[in-house]
């Protein structure tokens, strides 16, 4: 049932006291990264415990919104704001009215006498009685409902879910939930104990289930690298939803918080407030369809983006949602690299296919990925026939095979000898920077604390140029040393400030992308580096020594630099980047690294095709690195075999042994494999995104 609609012109609105206006600059590095570089100068409007989506607003609008800390009509607040800022009130109103109306619609600005105008507080206290139950503690609090752990008269613990007040909409949800729980009668859902109304408030009392959200249960198994138990957990979850559908019930609000894993591993599906019977064909729209945008299927995402009435939930849309949830449980990540900005999220759901696990930095799992890819098909008719079929296919999927069979050869001997010498701090003055980099990458590949300590000592010997500072910054990240990281970033900027253009600036910009991407989790302020990089992108980057006309026409390096920085999430894409890529593609320029990176950034299948169509480098070292890059693009394990073969050939060639050792280190963590951020390593050139005369392969 609809709530009363406020008169937007006459009602006095208030920004409730628990609504937060947080400047993006003050958010954690992790959240800033998720929001992306386009949000600088914006604020996030958010309200915990309320079923509202956080909004990004530009800073002037945030200041205007803050005017509603005291109740005000929209026009009065605009007038006050315009006067205090010396602006024309009519112009401000024209600019801001739609945005304010959206915030009213989103219930972030609410009428001053509405119940939502007050901060949330529990309506019952421990020890208090309600409908014959004794309240123990608050478990969850939302604007319209609360869940308490309580005691039944017979001493049994119960989950007591009740409406905050007598509003009919929540009572209707609770009645629906009670009806569904009664129908399902336990098993994969909590047993219904009682339901009704008390003091006008609807309630549902149900069996208390100890356990954690399935998201937490999966996190524990991912942290333990236990893929067998992880697969079993997801299989049980899929089977539970399959049984639900077989009983003719759609859950209607799938997300990890609505799925509990009990101590004994059994799955319990929670919150049937939005559940409904699987409807007859032709029931095509549903104004009240619920859900969290990350779990929308492409049809729902398209409808919401277009401002249309959402299509009704169906078994096929719910199959998509449980497949998204499965992917997230298995990898910890959304299948389409979901951004925080809702419109972009919906666009990607509507347009993009799921990414291979390897492209998200997760070891590939071909059998499982194939099952989920079908469930995540854009067209409902291409998905599994039903969730039960998906569950069966998933349960039958094999665990991923081990890495290609280990055969110890000359490449392994290069690696062993290098790590042994590094631990003994034996390397001489030559290739100090490269040795420190090898030590760091080997430490990360092997989770080896001694190699990490050695990397620290070796890095201390490296000259403080921008390349050395790049190693120091990445090392500081690996050592969780924020102060050292801030020092390294400062030194990088000092070393790179004098670069005004050309290949040296291009290489330094690539290194800055390494730092920005690799150090995203630390608290060091990376904004000055991002600003320097964004400014550097606007300078000329053609490679010296080439004919200028040729370089401008088909030099892939500037595009590669720009893509690297855009992928770091700290630098916005230059407006000309996509056109530049089209030009390069038309001229058959670019290499594996350029087109794989372009695919990472734009998810354009043509870029992937280009990357896969190119000949790999002939020199075995670079061929090995290129094969690893293609593994990260596709998840195809045959690329790992190719890379391993290339390492063996490199060890038998004139390639320096420690360069081979570096390739071996990357092979041991192929989902995180990378090229070193230098133009050469141990004297071997690394010609990434190099121009090829005439575009010849």
């Amino acid at each position, binding site marked *: 049932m609809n709530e009363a609609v406020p008169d937007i012109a006459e009602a006095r609105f208030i920004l409730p006291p628990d609504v937060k206006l947080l400047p993006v600059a003050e958010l954690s590095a*992790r959240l800033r990264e998720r929001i992306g570089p386009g949000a600088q100068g914006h604020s996030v409007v958010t309200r915990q415990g309320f079923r509202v989506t956080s909004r990004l607003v530009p800073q002037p609008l945030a200041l205007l919104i803050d005017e509603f800390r005291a109740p005000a009509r929209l026009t009065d607040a605009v007038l006050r704001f315009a006067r205090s800022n010396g602006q024309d009130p009519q112009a401000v109103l024209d600019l801001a009215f739609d945005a304010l109306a959206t915030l009213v619609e989103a219930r972030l600005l609410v009428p001053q006498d509405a119940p939502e105008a007050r901060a949330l507080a529990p309506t019952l206290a421990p020890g208090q009685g309600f409908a014959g139950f004794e309240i123990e503690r608050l478990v969850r609090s939302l604007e319209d409902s609360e869940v308490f752990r309580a005691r039944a008269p017979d001493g049994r613990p119960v989950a007591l879910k009740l409406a905050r007040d007598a509003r009919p909409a929540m009572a209707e949800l609770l009645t629906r939930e009670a009806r569904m729980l009664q129908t399902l009668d336990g098993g994969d859902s909590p047993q219904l104990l009682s339901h009704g109304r008390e003091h006008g408030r609807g309630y549902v009392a149900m069996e208390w289930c100890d356990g954690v959200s399935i998201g*937490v249960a999966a996190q524990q198994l*991912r*942290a333990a690298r236990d893929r067998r138990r992880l697969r079993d957990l997801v299989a049980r979850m899929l089977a539970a939803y399959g049984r639900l559908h077989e009983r003719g019930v759609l859950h209607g609000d799938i997300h990890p918080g609505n799925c509990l894993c009990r101590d004994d591993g059994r799955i319990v599906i929670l919150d049937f407030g939005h559940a409904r019977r699987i409807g007859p064909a032709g029931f095509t729209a549903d104004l009240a369809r619920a859900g969290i945008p990350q779990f929308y299927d492409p049809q729902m995402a398209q409808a919401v983006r277009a401002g249309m009435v959402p299509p009704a939930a169906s078994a096929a849309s719910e199959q998509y949602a449980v497949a998204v949830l499965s992917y997230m449980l298995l990898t910890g990540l959304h299948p389409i690299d979901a951004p925080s900005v809702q419109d972009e999220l919906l666009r990607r759901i509507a347009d993009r296919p799921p990414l291979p696990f390897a492209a998200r930095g997760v070891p590939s799992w071909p059998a499982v990925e194939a099952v989920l890819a079908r469930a995540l098909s854009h067209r409902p008719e291409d998905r599994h026939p039903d969730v039960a079929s998906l569950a069966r296919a998933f349960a039958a999927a094999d665990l991923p095979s081990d890495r290609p069979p280990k055969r110890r050869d000359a490449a392994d001997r290069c690696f062993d000898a290098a790590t042994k010498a590094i631990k003994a701090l034996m390397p001489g003055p030559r290739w100090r920077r490269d040795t420190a980099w090898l030590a760091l990458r080997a430490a990360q590949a092997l989770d080896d604390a*001694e190699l990490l300590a050695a990397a620290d*000592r070796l890095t201390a010997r490296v000259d403080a140029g921008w390349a050395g500072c790049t190693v120091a910054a990445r090392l500081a990240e690996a*050592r969780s040393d924020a102060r050292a990281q801030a020092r390294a970033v400062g030194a990088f900027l000092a070393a790179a400030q004098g670069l005004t253009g050309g290949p040296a600036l291009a290489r330094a910009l690539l290194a800055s992308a390494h730092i920005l991407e690799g150090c995203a989790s630390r608290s060091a302020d990376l904004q000055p580096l991002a600003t320097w990089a964004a400014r550097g992108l606007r300078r000329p980057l053609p490679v010296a020594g080439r004919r200028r006309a040729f370089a401008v026409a088909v030099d892939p390096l500037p595009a590669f630099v720009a893509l690297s920085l855009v992928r770091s999430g700290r630098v916005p894409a230059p407006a000309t980047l996509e056109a530049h890529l089209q030009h390069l593609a038309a001229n058959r320029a670019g290499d594996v690294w350029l087109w794989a990176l372009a695919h990472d950034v734009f998810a354009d299948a043509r870029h992937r095709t280009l990357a896969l169509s190119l000949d790999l480098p002939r020199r075995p070292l670079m061929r090995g690195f290129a094969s690893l890059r293609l593994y990260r693009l596709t998840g195809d394990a045959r690329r790992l075999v190719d890379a391993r073969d290339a390492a063996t050939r490199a060890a038998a060639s004139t390639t320096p042994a420690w360069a081979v050792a570096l390739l071996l280190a990357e092979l041991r963590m192929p989902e995180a494999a990378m090229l070193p951020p230098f133009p050469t390593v141990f004297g071997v050139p690394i010609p990434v995104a190099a121009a090829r005369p005439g575009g010849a392969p």
Partner: protein
Amino acid sequence: MGRIARLSLSALRMAARDAPDDPAALAQWLYRYGTVPRGPAIERDFGPDDEPMGALGLTVGGAARRRLESAYEASTLQGWYSFARSAAPARLAAACKLYVSPIPRALPDAFVRIVEVFVQAEVRSFKVGRGIEGLLRPDKIMAYFDERPQLDVVVARLMDRLHGCPVQGVPFTADEGGDGLLSSGVDPPWGGTASSWRAWVTARLAAGLIARRDRPPAAALAGTLSDLRSHGVDTARWRAGAATFRPEAAA
């Protein structure tokens, strides 16, 4: 040679060969020796900020949290989650402490078992590293005891419950179980030059090595260890002697 002895010696050899000039920086380097590298995979799997609490079972409904809720009070310190028995009266400094050092990947299974032992044995307080950086450090879990016999009881129970658990190991601490998973230390008296056993011992090791920079690494290391032994420290087992902290206590 046991794991902890080997780790400690390897740290000292590296430091003797290539030490920074600043004693505080070297002491810090020795103190952090044994920290597992941070990388994208472990960061993703444990999660950012306080999300690793979920991997430990410390979020709402988690197995470790449910076991602790009735008997312990939790507090959040910089870099640590600390747990103290709710019923325990305010007491003097602990007599000794126990380090429990599984590798990070073993924590989701091991931590709840460690908590069960601590709860059963009524350990007065313990702390666990906060965030992924807190779990990568070797001394990620520390429990405090009023008496050595209680520590011994807990060691025996943990050896039983954590059999086969992969070990990280805390350098410069006294091995208690033979494989480096469990080790102990005795903190110096409060108000002295260092706040903990490892801070105390690494500061002295750093000062000794830097004072002998002009000597060959092996000689610098031997001289430094000899100095420490003269303070009553058993440098093979990394155990303080009865006289080790006497000057600090007197001060």
